[in-house]
C-alpha cells in the first residue's frame, strides 16, 4: 500500500519533471520557458519530496529534511521565477513572434493615452 503510493508519487513527479525539462528545451520563448520551469518545480519536485516523506515518515531524519526542502522550494521558486521574468522583460528580451498580447506595454500605453 505505502510502497505503491510512494512509487506512484515518484513516477508522477518524474513525469512532470521530464515534461518541464523537455519544455525548457523545446519552447520558443524565454517567458514560456520560465513558465515550464515553474511547473516543473511545483508538480515535479514537490510530489517527489512528498514520496520521500511518506516512505521515511515525517519525523525521521530524512523526512524532516525533505519537508524543509519542500517548504523552501514552495516559497522561493515562484519568487525567483517572477524576478527573472521581470528582469528579462526590462532588459528587452524579445517575445515569440506568435505572441498575442504584451500586457505591461498595453497598460502603460493606455495610462499614457488616458
Amino acid at each position, binding site marked *: 500500500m505505502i510502497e505503491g503510493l510512494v*512509487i506512484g508519487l515518484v513516477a508522477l513527479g518524474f513525469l512532470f519533471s521530464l515534461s518541464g525539462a523537455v519544455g525548457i528545451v523545446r519552447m520558443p520563448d524565454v517567458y514560456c520557458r520560465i513558465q515550464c520551469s515553474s511547473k516543473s518545480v511545483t508538480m515535479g519536485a514537490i510530489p517527489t519530496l512528498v514520496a*520521500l516523506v511518506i516512505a521515511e515518515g515525517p519525523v525521521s531524519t530524512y523526512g524532516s*529534511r*525533505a519537508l524543509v526542502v519542500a517548504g523552501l522550494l514552495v516559497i522561493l521558486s515562484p519568487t525567483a521565477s517572477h524576478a*527573472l521574468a521581470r528582469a528579462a522583460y526590462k532588459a528587452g528580451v524579445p517575445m515569440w513572434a506568435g505572441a498575442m498580447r504584451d500586457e505591461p506595454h498595453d497598460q502603460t500605453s493606455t495610462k499614457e493615452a488616458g
Partner: protein
Amino acid sequence: MYLAVVIAELALVAILLVRLGRGPTVSDRIVALNTMATQTALATLFFAAYADRTVDLDVAIWLASFSYLGAIIWSRYLERGLL
C-alpha cells in the same frame, strides 16, 4: 528505488545542459541553470537516503536556497547591468 530517482534526476540535468549550451539569450540560460540546481538538490536528498548518510542532507538545503539566491543575483545583473 532511491538510486533510480537519483539517476533520473541526473538525466534531467543532462537534458537541461542542452538549453544551457544553445540558449540564444542569457535569460534562457538562467532558467536552465535554476532548474538544474533544483534537480541537483533533489538528487542530493535522494542520494543521502540511498547511502544512509545524514551528513549529506544539509547540502540539499544549501542547494535549494542557493538556487534562489543565484537567480536573484543574475536577474539583478540582467536588469541593471551592474551588481
